[in-house]
């Protein structure tokens, strides 16, 4: 017992004696790192313009117009070469100010000419730029497009660093990186709205983005393409919304090729429907609010068949 009582105070004395030495070493290490371009902590404040409200997306005008807003509490991710280096808080004033400040801290090993900063909203807990896992809801809920899939970027390139002045190039705007589609599904036989539980979209050109990652060689964000499934929280016969990015284009003026989307739909009774829609090239650009109705036909299995019959639309 005595030995144990002695051991603890002695241990504390040893630890206390070590502490100043560690701090001094840390200080010296910092000075050395400073001379060798160690990671620097940058507090980045970006003044951003747009109407500010409590919503990021605002459906108005009898659901005919979709506006965007900065959202209090929203965060902006900062990427350099595809790696996240910090988050900026959206700071808004009272009322509906026209501007918002994005402010936060990033840590990076010295900016240099040619470095590209990608500012990306929304900031997700998983720090991904991903379109999978949508539930067809536009706003409010945690898995809504507003909170998870309404991506916008501002991409800036460091053009020059001259003494105490850094100049960046690039558009002084955030760009919506997808369009918002509203799909309604109608049973071509009845006809009536299908009570949709889940649907999947396929592109004939295989240009529906599932997620994006940064290509370090091309220095570009690039998509993984594939089908996109939307699963409603509960089945509904109302239209469902999808944030859909088609291809990877640096602007909206680059010509797209028209595509044919095909859909498979599962309704509340687990019945399968198939349908399709020709999509004109000008409906595949980014930043649009688009609406269409898909006529689908229920697939009825022949007792002798082991696979679903091909649907005609």
């Amino acid at each position, binding site marked *: 017992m005595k030995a144990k009582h002695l051991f603890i105070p002695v241990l504390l004395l040893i630890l206390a004696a070590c502490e100043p030495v560690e701090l001094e070493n840390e*200080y010296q290490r*910092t*000075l050395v*790192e*400073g*001379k060798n*371009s*160690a*990671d*620097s*902590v*940058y*507090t*980045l*404040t*970006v*003044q*951003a*313009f*747009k109407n500010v409200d409590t919503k990021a*997306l605002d459906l108005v*005008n009898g*659901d*005919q*117009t*979709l*506006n*965007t807003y*900065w959202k209090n509490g929203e965060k902006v991710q900062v990427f350099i070469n595809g790696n996240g280096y910090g988050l900026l808080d959206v700071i808004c004033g009272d009322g509906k100010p026209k*501007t918002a400040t*994005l402010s936060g801290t990033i840590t990076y090993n*010295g*900016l*240099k000419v040619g470095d590209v900063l990608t*500012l990306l909203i929304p900031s997700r807990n998983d720090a991904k730029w991903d379109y999978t896992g949508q539930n067809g809801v536009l706003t409010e809920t945690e898995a809504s497009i507003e909170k998870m899939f309404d991506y916008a970027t*501002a991409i800036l390139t460091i053009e020059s*660093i001259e*003494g*105490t*002045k*850094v*100049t*960046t*190039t690039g558009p*002084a*705007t*955030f*760009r*919506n990186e997808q*369009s*918002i589609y509203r799909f309604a599904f109608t049973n071509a036989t009845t006809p009536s709205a299908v009570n949709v539980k889940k649907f999947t979209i396929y592109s004939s050109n295989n240009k529906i983005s599932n997620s994006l990652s940064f290509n370090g060689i091309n220095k570009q964000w690039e998509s993984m393409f594939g089908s996109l499934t939307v699963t409603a929280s509960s089945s509904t016969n109302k239209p469902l919304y999808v944030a859909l990015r088609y291809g990877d284009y640096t602007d909206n003026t680059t010509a797209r090729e028209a595509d044919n989307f095909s859909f498979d739909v599962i309704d509340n009774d687990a019945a399968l429907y198939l349908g399709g829609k020709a*999509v*004109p090239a000008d*409906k595949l650009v980014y*930043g*649009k*609010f*688009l*609406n*269409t109705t898909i006529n689908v036909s229920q697939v009825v299995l022949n007792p002798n068949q082991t696979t679903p019959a091909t649907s005609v639309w």
Partner: protein
Amino acid sequence: MKGSNMMQYTTPAMQIVELHAKTAICSTSNNSVTWTYNNDRFSPDQGIGWDRPDYGDLVNF
């Protein structure tokens, strides 16, 4: 920016960076590098800054 003589004496290396539409301006003090707005260039009235476009009116197809 990295050429600042003051950077190596900053503990921890700290830079205050403020970016606006085109240019960030910085100044140095004894032991830090502070980036500030050039208020002449940064003015809401001039429409300089980051904007975010609306999706706009519904388009049927």
